[in-house]
Structure formats: C-alpha cells, structure tokens
C-alpha cells in the first residue's frame, strides 16, 4: 500500500493547477501582438540587387538544383553587355519548405531569406511568385557584396581592377 504516495499524487496536481490559474498566460495574441522573429529566421525568399543596383542573380540554376522540393524555376539569358540574368524567375511558395538551401547554394548571394512569414492565402496560385514579385530594391543581408567586382567577367568591371584581384600578368615579361 502506497496510500500516502497515492493521496499526495492525487491532491498535489490540484494545487498546481489552481496556482497556475492566477498566473498571466504566456499566449502571444497574434494579429495584435507580434513577436520579433529571430535574426536568422527563414521565411519568404527575395532576389536582391548588388550595391550598383544591378540584379545579383546570374541564372546559374544552382538554387533550383539545391531545392529539395523543386519549387524554383528560371530561364537564363545573356544581356547585350554579356551579363547573364534570368529572363523569368519563379518560386512556388505553396511548395517551398523554407529550408534555405537555395540561399546556401547561391554563389552571388542573390536569393536570400527574410523574416516575413505571413504568406497564407486562400488561392494557392497566388503563392506562385514571379520575378517582379521576388526582386527587391536593396542588397538584403549583405550590403557590400558585389559578385561582378569579386570574380566577375570583364563586362561589369575591367579585369584586374576589382578588389582582392591583382593586376593581370604580362606574359611577355620574364620576371614574375
């Protein structure tokens, strides 16, 4: 017989629940009260621009290759000046699982995550975002990075003039 133990185990919860009844609820009343989302929260994806205001995306398809649910699709084109860009770029947010693997894959830091999680709607077709819905007018989380200034081809900036790049080698010289 564990009578004492059983009685204690039966009566103690009543005190616990009664005490908790007079404490303030921890609920965040969502539409009125909003929590600050975490700094690295992963929600809606955006396409950012570089500091010069050009599109960062070079339509390399790495994000769509990395995407586990295949929600990213695009068509690559080359501009007059030789710069690659996406003719159209489409993310189906009704499929997206917000894993952030596309942002890991992106070599130009074009595709980035934001903290905007309020994507819900009644029409799933409205969750298919086109390029004009995705493209923003700022640099996102990396304000200084400019792909074409780091490793870009000669179209955007002449060779040898970029940061972390030394001047081109003169092959006719004997000394290095």
């Amino acid at each position, binding site marked *: 017989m564990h009578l004492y133990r059983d009685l204690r185990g039966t009566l103690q*919860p*009543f005190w616990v*629940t*009664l005490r*908790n*009844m007079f404490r303030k*609820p921890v*609920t965040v*009343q969502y539409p009125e009260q909003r929590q600050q989302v975490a700094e690295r929260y992963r929600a809606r994806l955006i396409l950012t621009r570089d500091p010069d205001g050009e599109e960062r995306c070079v339509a390399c398809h790495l994000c769509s290759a990395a995407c586990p649910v295949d929600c990213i699709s695009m068509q690559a084109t080359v501009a007059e000046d030789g710069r690659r860009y996406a003719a159209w770029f489409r993310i189906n947010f009704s499929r997206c699982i917000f894993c952030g693997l596309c942002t890991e894959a992106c070599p130009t830091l074009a595709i980035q995550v934001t903290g905007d999680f309020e994507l819900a709607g009644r029409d799933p077709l409205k969750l298919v975002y086109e390029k004009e819905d995705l493209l923003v007018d700022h640099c996102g989380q990396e304000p200084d990075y400019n792909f074409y200034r780091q490793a870009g081809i000669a179209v955007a900036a002449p060779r040898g003039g970029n940061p972390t790049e030394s001047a081109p080698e003169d092959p006719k010289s004997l000394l290095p």
Partner: protein
Amino acid sequence: MTEQLIMLGLILAKLGLIFIVILTLAAYLVLAERKILARMQLRYGPNRVGPFGMLQPLSDLIKLLTKEDFLPAAADKWLFLIAPGLSALTALLTFAVIPFGPPLEIFGRTLPLVVIDLNIGLLYFLGLSSLAVYGMALGGWASNSKYALLGSIRGLSQLISYELSMGLAVVPVVMMARSFSLTEIVMAQAEIPYALLNPPAFLIFLISIVAESKRIPFDMPEAENELVAGFHTEYSGMRFGLFFVGEYINLIILGSMLTVLFLGGWHGPWLPGVVWFSLKVLAVCFFFIWVRASLPRLRYDQLMHFGWKVLLPLALLNALVTGAILLWIGQ
C-alpha cells in the same frame, strides 16, 4: 377555472424557464470550461467572438448546425439517429425532480420550485442516470466502428463499476432524512449539510458522479488519445452536438444532485435560496473542470478495481455504520 388557468400558466412559465436556463447554462459551461482550462494551462481560451468570447457558444451552435450530418454506410440507421437524442433527453428529464429553491409565494399561491416533487425522486434520478448510458451504448453500437464499439463497451463496464457505490452512498442520506423525496432531503439539511455530517458518503458519491459524468479522470468511453473519440467517433454536426450538450446538462444535473443530497440544497445565510442553489451547483461544476485540468485518465481496469474493491466495500461499511449510529441515537 381562472384559478386553474393561472396555475397552469405559472407551471408552463416555470418549465420554459428551466428549459431555457439549463440549455443556456450548458452552452456557457462549455465556454467556462474552455476558459478555465485554458487559464490553468497559461492560455487565454476562446476570446475572439464577442467581448471576452462571450458569443462563442452561439458561433459553435451555428457551426454545428451547418455542418454535414453524416451517416456511415454500415451504421444501424435508426439507432444511430436516435442515440444522441436519448443521451440529451435523459439528461434533461432528470432535472424534473431537482428542487432548486424554497417554495415561492406568487399571486397569493404557493409555487414549489421543482417541476414535480416525486416521493421517490432519488430513485427516479438513479433510474434515469442508468438510462442515460443507453444513448452512449447504442450510439457506439450503431456506428458499426471498432473505436465507437470499444468506447461504448467501456462505458457499460464503467457503469456497473461506479453505479453500485453511487447507489450505496446515497443510502445513508435516505436513512438520515428518512425520505426518498429530494425536497424533504433538502428540508432535513436546514441546520447542517450532510457533507459535514457524513463525509465518507459525500466523498464516495463525489467520486462516483465524476465517473458518471464520463469526464477525466474517468473518460474511458471517449479517451481521445486511444479511441479517437470513443462512442461519438462517427457522429458529426448537431448529432455530435447533442451528445456534447447532453454531457454538459448531465454535469449540471450531477452538480445539482450533489448540492441537493450533500451540500444542503438551497439553504444558506443572507442570500435567497435560488441564488445559494445556483452558487453551489456552479461551484461543483468548477470542481469538475478543475479535476479535468488536474488529473490524468485512469485505465479502465484501474477504475473497475477502484470501484469494486475500494468504493463498494467502503460504501457498504458506511451504510452499516450510519445505520448503527442512527439506531443507537434512537432516531
């Protein structure tokens, strides 16, 4: 003739009032339960529909009424359709014998505040409380589903476990009040309620009515994490709503019975009798909700063990001792 007409009008007004009050109270008890339970779990509970969520029962009603009334293909049609009504009806009928206030003087006439003062009111209650389980048993059987059937079988096995001790726990009350009429039992508690005079009977009856209400910790017939929803798994729309409302009417009935039998009914200082009665019933209802927030579910073998091996001998012993003491006092 006019005399009789006025009396008839008064009785009909009383009936209508009881009907409306009970149904409204049952609806708001759902809201109260959800809110109190939420506060005990550090949540707010429903607070969107109307101020403080006070219109939630109304929106629930609209939702239940507009939902599809689904009839499973393999169900026994008529039993399936009748069962929820049976459950709500037996619960409503029980209130007929419960005296909820001292006789009222109105237009120079005495109007007893009870629908009908049967001289076997207590037996009527016990009989209807056994009938109430038919709604559940038939509902589970007619659904022709494993979970529903298991739920109703559990309900029946639960019934035979708690009902004996419940019946035996009211025997001392009958012996002390020397009457089966609920009004006279209340009258006999004018000085001291039977809960203080005979605490063992009170406790046994309390545990038994928690089992009777089929709520946590004795909610084996529903057991949502084992049996989906138990006997009402296959029900939808307002038929489910009838089961649901029946459960809460039953809660009010059981609270009223506890008040009448052990807590002194309408007796109390300063306030009018009806107010005292309502306060006591609401306190018992709060206790039921509190129990639900505090205790986990028992296994059904634990309930049967507890009912047959603990409550039944205790209730028998209590009846014996009370009888002996009453004889010794020479009442």
